[in-house]
C-alpha cells in the first residue's frame, strides 16, 4: 500500500515533468525495459538506443499519461511500439516459430502436440539460459511480446490484451504457442539435437 502510494506520488511528479522524479522512475524500470527491448531487438546496441528512446518518449509525454492504464502498461506499450518500429526500419526479417496457427479471433482450436517434458531435470544454468534466449529470439513478432510480458513481467492476460490491442483469447493462444515452441527447443537441446555455441545455439 505504501509502495503504491509512493509510486503514485512519483508518477504525479513525473507528470509535471520533474527531472529528478523521472530519474527515480528510470531507476525503477530501466532493467526491465532494457531486458524486454533486448529480447525484442536483435542488436544489443540497437536495444540500448531503443531503451533510451523509450524513456525519452515517456518523459516527453508523461503529462499526457491519463492513468487509465497502469504506468507499467503504458511504458511497455511505448517500448513495444518502438521495438516494432525499429524492426521495420532495419527491415529485419523476424524468424517465425515453425508452428502453424491462426490467432485472428482468439477462439481457434490449437492442435499442438505436447512433447515429453521433465522440468525437474533442468536447472537454469548459463547454457540453458542461452538456449532459452535463443528460443525466444526465434519467436515471431506476435508471439514474443506476449511471452515476455506474461512470463517475465507477470502481466495479466487483460493487461497484455490492452497493451497489444488484441483479444484476450488471442493473448492466451499466442502465449501457449510461444511456450510450446520453447518447449520444443528445450526438448531438442535435452535430446542433444541442439548444441549451444559461444554466442548462441547451433543446430
Amino acid at each position, binding site marked *: 500500500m505504501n509502495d503504491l502510494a509512493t509510486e503514485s506520488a512519483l508518477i504525479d511528479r513525473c507528470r509535471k515533468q520533474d527531472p529528478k522524479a523521472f530519474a527515480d522512475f528510470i531507476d525503477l524500470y*530501466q532493467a526491465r525495459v532494457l531486458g524486454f527491448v533486448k529480447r525484442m531487438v536483435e542488436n544489443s546496441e540497437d536495444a540500448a538506443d531503443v531503451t533510451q528512446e523509450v524513456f525519452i518518449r515517456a*518523459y516527453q509525454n508523461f503529462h499526457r499519461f491519463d492513468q487509465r492504464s497502469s504506468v507499467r502498461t503504458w511504458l511497455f506499450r511505448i517500448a513495444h511500439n518502438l521495438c516494432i518500429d525499429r524492426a521495420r526500419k532495419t527491415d529485419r526479417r523476424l524468424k517465425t516459430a515453425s508452428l502453424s496457427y491462426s490467432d485472428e479471433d482468439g477462439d481457434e482450436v490449437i492442435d499442438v502436440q505436447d512433447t515429453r517434458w521433465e522440468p525437474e531435470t533442468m536447472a537454469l544454468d548459463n547454457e540453458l539460459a542461452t538456449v532459452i534466449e535463443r528460443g525466444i529470439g526465434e519467436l515471431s513478432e506476435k508471439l514474443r511480446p506476449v511471452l515476455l510480458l506474461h512470463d517475465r513481467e507477470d502481466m495479466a492476460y487483460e493487461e497484455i490484451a490492452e497493451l497489444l490491442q488484441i483479444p484476450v483469447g488471442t493473448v492466451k493462444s499466442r502465449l501457449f504457442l510461444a511456450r510450446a515452441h520453447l518447449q520444443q527447443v528445450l526438448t531438442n537441446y535435452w535430446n542433444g539435437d541442439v548444441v549451444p555455441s559461444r554466442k548462441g545455439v547451433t543446430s
Partner: protein
Amino acid sequence: MKERMNSRHDLDQLLNAEAQQGVAKLVRDLKDEEPDMAWRAALSSKIMEQSVAVQRRRKFNFFLKPASGLALASCLALVVVVSTQRPQTVPSNPAPAVASASIEKLIIDEHQNVAYATDVSGVGLAQPEANYERAPRVADDPILVDFFQL
C-alpha cells in the same frame, strides 16, 4: 457458443499444464542485465536536454498565450470597428452626385439669366434687373409671339 466456452476452457487448461508452467518458470528465472553507467549517464544527459527544452517551451508559452490573446482581442476590436462604420459610408456615396447635379443646375440657370439679360435689355442694364425665371414665357404671352413663324 458452448464450443467457444469449451475451447477457452481447454486453452486455460493447456496453459496451466505442467509443461507450460515449467517453460514459464524458466523464462521468469532468466536474469536481466543492469544497464551500465555510461548508458545511464547518456540517458540522464538526454533527459536534462529535454527538461531544458520543456522549461523553454513553458516560458515561451507564458509569453505567447497573453500575446496571442491580445492579438486576438485586437483583431476582434478591429472587426467590430470596421463593421460599425460600414453602414455610414454606404449612404454617403449618392450625396456628391446630388450636390454636383445642383451645382450644374445653378451654373446653367446663371448662364441663362445672363444670356437673357443681355438679349432682352441690351447694353447698359444691370444684369440683376432682368431675370430669366421672372420673364414671361413666349407661349404664355401673345405679345411676344413671333408672327413671322405663324
